[in-house]
């Protein structure tokens, strides 16, 4: 698959209020790029811009790689009145194209739900529903896949299984994963970005191919660093009393401090 890279440079406002920027984000072609950050810092805004859902967002800058995307969100967004198979082929029906039921069944086979093709989404568990959503995303067969916290509503074991399956099935596509879970970012990111109130920063990922093992020491260490950087944990030796200070910015060895990246919000 000839997947494009994603790039965004610029500033976004919603209703006159600054959401992020100016910032610069590059997601290399065919890789998993994780965008990690707390709620309300504009992660979803970035994703919506790439998804072409930027109504109401005043974006001033350049965007490339958008269009030809498939979207998978935290909510599986399955239509309760359609069978699992009809949900998987929804895109074709919405575009007025011929529905290829055989191909859809093969995709359901790959997510392990071929025997549930005729069931309604209401009969499935949360993890199964999210696998159907993954099958629907795969059936769209787009070179770019945007993932908006697709695993965050799942229990820990199901989440790990879904992460493995998703990495396996989305191989070769450009993936942008928005998440607030440092463990997920440390497991899945070829490239890691942290977006906080202070701006966007690229962080070196742990070594090794994704999905990285959950209990791996390097992954756990990376997870801890990410958490610290999010400002969730006070840095050792600093702020023994009073409020936890924000982690110093240079806690990471920067391999490439994102070209001309003025941080901070006014």
């Amino acid at each position, binding site marked *: 698959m000839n997947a494009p890279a994603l790039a965004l440079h610029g500033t976004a406002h919603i209703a006159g209020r600054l959401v992020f920027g100016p910032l610069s984000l590059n997601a290399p072609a065919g890789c998993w790029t994780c965008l990690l950050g707390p709620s309300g810092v504009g992660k979803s805004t970035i994703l919506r811009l790439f998804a072409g859902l930027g109504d109401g967002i005043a974006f001033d800058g350049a965007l490339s790689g958008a269009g030809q995307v498939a979207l998978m969100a935290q909510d599986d967004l399955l*239509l309760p*009145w359609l069978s699992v198979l009809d949900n998987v082929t929804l895109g074709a029906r919405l575009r*007025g194209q011929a529905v290829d039921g055989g191909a859809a069944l093969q995709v359901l086979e790959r997510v392990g739900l071929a025997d549930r093709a005729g069931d309604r989404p209401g009969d499935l568990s949360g993890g199964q529903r999210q696998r159907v959503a993954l099958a629907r995303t795969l059936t*769209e067969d787009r070179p770019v896949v945007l993932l908006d916290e697709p695993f965050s509503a799942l229990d820990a074991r199901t989440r790990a299984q879904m992460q493995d399956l998703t990495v396996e099935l989305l191989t070769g596509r450009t993936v942008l994963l928005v998440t607030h879970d440092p463990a997920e970012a440390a497991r899945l990111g070829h490239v890691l970005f942290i977006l906080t109130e202070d701006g966007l920063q690229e962080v070196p990922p742990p070594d090794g191919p994704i999905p990285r093992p959950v209990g791996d020491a390097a992954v756990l260490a990376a997870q801890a660093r990410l958490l610290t950087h999010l400002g969730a944990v006070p840095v050792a030796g600093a702020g023994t009393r009073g409020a936890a200070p924000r982690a110093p910015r240079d806690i990471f060895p920067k391999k490439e401090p994102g070209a001309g990246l003025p941080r901070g919000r006014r």
Partner: protein
Amino acid sequence: MTRAVWMRGLLGVAPVVLALSLWQAAVWLGDLPRFILPGPAAVAQTLWHSRALIAEHALVTLTEVLAGLMLGAALGGVSAIGLAASALARRLVQPILVFTQAVPVFALAPILTLWFGYGMGSKIAMALIIIYFPVTASFLDALTRTHPGWLELARVMGASPLRVLWHIRVPAALPGFASGVKLAAVYAPIGAIIGEWVGASRGLGYLMLLANGRAKTDLMFAALIVLALLTLALHWAVGAGLRRMLQRYGA
């Protein structure tokens, strides 16, 4: 277990017994003559004796109500989809719809009789008019409240607005349509009865008017009770039917 069932049955019957007792008490305490307020027993007697007459007229009213309900539901459904599809249509038609709601439907009955005649047509039209707005409003409201996530997914998938309407918004709004039709099942008999009052030679409304005019108050009450029971039965049947349909639909 059986005791609980008995208790439930008793509690179900209790309101009926209470209402009948109050009714009978009013007749006794007020010492009311039969042509002002007949007691429940007298009404029951008339109901039994005149069952053929009442059934004949009830059948006419029921036919009018069902025809009006079906036409009104169909017309309301089509209108709501049309309005949901086009912002221009909404701008043009919605004010008109609201305005027509400000017109008392009762005032239209004579002109409808003039237009559609003395027979069933004018009553069906009356029932249709009275239920058209609740069906349209409730369906349109549901059509404009589609889960935003579904709409965004459809946009990312490259869907045209009309296909989104047909494949997502309409199916998602069917419960709203169903609640509109359930409400309509209660309103439709009112429309038919008003039509019959204004000008008819058949139907429960006509029978009630006739009985009233001849001081046959017991017959009037008998017809009224049958009408109320018909309305309740219709409401229940429509509700159960729609529930089954929606269940099969998985929504």
